[in-house]
């Protein structure tokens, strides 16, 4: 089965307090980036997996997000891209 690398972003939903984003925005302001108007900090998840097709990989990734990767109460996720890759480092985590 072909191997894919899937890039997923999970960010705090708008309207939900993001203390981390606020702290980073404040820090950027005092570091000489006053032009910054908003910052949100989320997670970037890279999943390497096998699937019959890119579509299938995408579908499974959405399931992973719903079940585990994103908190449905506070976060939104987006599957940024699904790229076919040559080989998977199956041993990566043994």
């Amino acid at each position, binding site marked *: 089965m072909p191997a894919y690398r899937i890039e997923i972003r999970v960010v705090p939903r708008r309207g939900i*307090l993001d203390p981390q984003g606020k*702290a980073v925005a404040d820090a950027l302001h005092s570091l000489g980036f006053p032009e910054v108007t908003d910052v949100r900090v989320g997670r970037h998840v890279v999943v390497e997996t096998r699937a019959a097709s890119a579509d299938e990989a995408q579908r499974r990734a959405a399931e992973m997000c719903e079940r585990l990767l994103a908190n449905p109460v*506070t976060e939104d996720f987006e599957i940024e891209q699904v790229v076919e890759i040559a080989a998977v480092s199956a041993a990566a985590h043994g």
Partner: protein
Amino acid sequence: MPVTPRPGDPKITPALVAEHGITPFEYERLLAMLGREPTFTELGIVSALWSEHCSYKHSRPLLKTLPTEAPWVLQGPGENAGVIAVGDGLAVAFKIESHNHPSAVEPYQGAATGVGGILRDVFTMGARPIALLDSLRFGDLETPRVRYLFAGVVKGIGDYGNCVGIPTVAGEVVFDPAYEGNPLVNAMCVGLLREEELIRAVAEGVGNPIIAVGARTGRDGIHGASFASEDLSEATEAKRPRVQVGDPFTEKLLLEASLELIRSGHIVAIQDMGAAGLTSSSAEMAARGDVGVTIDTLKVPAREEGMTPYELLLSESQERMLVVAKKGHEDDVVAILTKWDLTAAVIGEVIAEPVYRVTEGDRVVAEFPGIRLVTDCPTYEPEARESDEIVRLRATDVHAIAEKAEERDPAWTLAQLLASPTIASKRWVHRQYDTMVRTNTVIGPGGDAAVVRLRGTDKAVALKTDCNGRYCFLDPYVGGMAAVAEAARNVACVGGRPMAITNNLNFGNPKRPEVYFQLREAVRGMGDACRALQTPVTGGNVSLYNENPNGAIYPTPVVGMVGLVDSLDHVTRAGFQAAGHAIVLLGE
């Protein structure tokens, strides 16, 4: 100026009233109080203030029966936290609070914000928090959902307390299928102050400015208070966006800023904006002082654009406080908050006219006649009847249950007991808590009660939360007594004299006779035990409607006890100390 609905406000219909959890009877009371139909904003205010969570409408008559006085009690129920004197001019403030419903929906944030709220209740008395405790109940640890809740709650409590820098020193964890779907997350905070630093949340002084302090107000947690007053169901799931997110970093700044403010002499009162946010804090402060207040929602620092008065009043955004300052000292207040990178905005003032008024700029969007907003909420004493099933269970002769062969082997029995998650070591939990920060923890988790030294004296406080829900289920009167007695034993075992308790009444739906019976009897038992041990009740919290379609939780009246250790020499640890010591069994 007359009260006018805002353009775009929904029309007040019986359906809308019901959606706000207000019964037809209560709506009649509201009409009588106002002498007219309420605006949408007013309906929101009343729905929050008359929710079970804020009004204690099903428990107040019972709570009145509890003993609340002793020479050492400086502040009994009715304030953000209770306060007792411990000698040397020092006093201890303490309170317990539940965050059961929020934790069932989002365990990490639910538990974290529970800790945040109880910390604020204590430092708004002028006390510096010195210890946190918890009391947790979950379903069967074998199910993935319970594991998720358990892990999330523990991490939420730990992350919040650790970050603020308050040690979590004791608590309890029980697993039982009775709590499946309805975890209980109670958090207790204990603080230390000098007697003269005690400050109460009583608004006074006509012309004094009302200042909103701390985090900005967002749309989070709107109607959290009424949400905490209903059964958990599919519909609750749909209310998820009400979840609040905690920011312990801002809390730490707020803690330091508040203590500095209180000691500065620039303010007359301060209160946490907890359940039902701005609404309950302002209305309660006004009611305690029997004064009027007016608040302009346009002046409330908002996190999002276009927030309505309804939203600003009911938001449960965390890490906010309401302050009544001395007139003319506004700039001093702002300067202290600015030092701590926090915002402060004058949003209203104390007025002579006995009304609770909310404006949006020039428009009056809500106005109630004075303290009746708080005092007119009806109280209920529903029918109480013990369920036949429990009577039958209690009558069962346990000795008649046939013994299994392996039970004759003490080693087997011991192994069985130790394998029970409720009995097993809770190190997995408290290892994630900073138990030592502030370097006063003489005995941390793992023994009986915790012992926290009062720096600068030879004294310490002994602290513990306790309850056995199964006892309470089988006999709520005895169970209520037993909870107090167990906490007292734990406190005594480390060398502490039991002084006072706070309590958290976690029960099911009080409108069911068997639940109200449990509540009534547990409170009676607790009161009798407190009278016997001379440990008055200085405050607490009530969490009802802990039910799901499968039924109610065990009645769980959690007791949080504070004891005084007169000398550090009296501190006694659990655990065998040395070979050759005699082992004595005390009691019957």
